[in-house]
């Protein structure tokens, strides 16, 4: 128990340092290089600045409440573990979307959000849920295609 509190306080302290660092330095970009093609760089990049950390804090606060609450709310469901993983993936893709620094990371977050929200909506297998889930995922796919088109337009306008 003591060890647990030690680890928890260590994590809390490091988060505090992180927040202070970001607040006073104005943020930083974490960039994991993939490949370059015709002068076009593809990389995983994440932006940690005041805005994205604020949104990330909101997301983590609310999702922690959800993670706690679903233990009681979903109790006795047959596919409890599937629901657990789906909510986890939903939160992860939301983090991807919030901290994304370029087009590629945004697309990962956006597509992951659409697909996992589809799986969450159709979690109970019946017709009504299926209809609304299909509307969700198809409208997300429209957004996906227009993301690609806007990526092309950005590329052509040289930004």
């Amino acid at each position, binding site marked *: 128990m003591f060890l647990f509190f030690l680890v928890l306080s260590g994590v809390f302290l490091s988060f505090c340092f992180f927040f202070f660092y970001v607040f006073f330095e104005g943020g930083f970009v974490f960039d994991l290089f993939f*490949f*370059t093609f015709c002068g076009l760089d593809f990389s995983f990049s994440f932006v940690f600045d005041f805005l994205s950390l604020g949104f990330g804090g909101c997301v983590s606060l609310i999702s922690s409440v959800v993670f706690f609450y679903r233990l009681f709310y979903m109790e006795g469901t047959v596919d409890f573990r599937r629901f657990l993983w789906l909510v986890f993936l939903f939160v992860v893709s939301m983090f991807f979307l919030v901290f994304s620094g370029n087009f590629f990371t945004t697309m990962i977050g956006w597509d992951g959000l659409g697909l996992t929200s589809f799986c969450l909506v159709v979690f109970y*297998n019946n*017709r009504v849920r*299926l209809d609304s889930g299909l509307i969700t995922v*198809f409208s997300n796919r429209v957004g996906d295609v227009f993301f*690609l*088109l806007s990526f092309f337009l950005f590329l052509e306008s040289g930004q």
Partner: protein
Amino acid sequence: MFLVFMVKLPVFGVHLWLPKAHVEAPVSGSMVLAGVLLKLGGYGFFRLCSFSVPFLFSYSGYIFSAGLLGGLVRCFFCLRQVDLKSFVAYSSVCHMGLALAGIFSFCFFGWWGGWFMFFSHGLCSSCLFYMLYVFYERFFSRSMFVLKGSLFYVPLLGFWWFVFCVLNMGVPPSLSFFSEVFILIGLGRTNFSSIWFAGLLMFFAGVYGIYLYVTVIHGGSLFSYVPFLSLVREYIVFFCHLYPSLLIVFYLGTFFS
């Protein structure tokens, strides 16, 4: 010679042999057919383009639009299929149309996009055929109406089915996403108005990917209890299809250096 490759890589109009061949073929036959044989048509185009560009360039507009519009028409046909094997076969026609349009944009982006589309589609469509075979071994049917609601008795296979349907529609960290991006750039550089059709084709690719997942996995099952024994061999095959299509993205730089 040109027409030969167009039949082999089924372009709209000369594709009708493909669903019939898939329906009748055994599983290994249709896996090889989807994974390798269709791509040989594309390989022929790559070779042909390298020595007869001026000739092909004058006709590229026709081939380009045959690939895009034919793929779009096939998407609508695909959504009307009841037999799942011909569903997957028609979906491969759509993807090959997109890849063909990418090759005949005569742009570096479109060229590599077509190449990647062949590779990623070969992986995920052959695995979709293998999954259909896994269902067929148990139920002796490929009909949507028999297989619906599989989530109740095979949750893990439902997961793998979801993964490959989603890979088929091009989800970001996979190779098919990069191929779609590159093809879209190549098309837009060649002819700007064609990117709307390419966008529509990608949207319908997403629609039938989700539809394929929903019809098989979702809904109420016909059977109340099915003794469904999964074999380790099957999951090894799924994993071996998934692994390269995700991992090759990290080594894409070696192609261009």
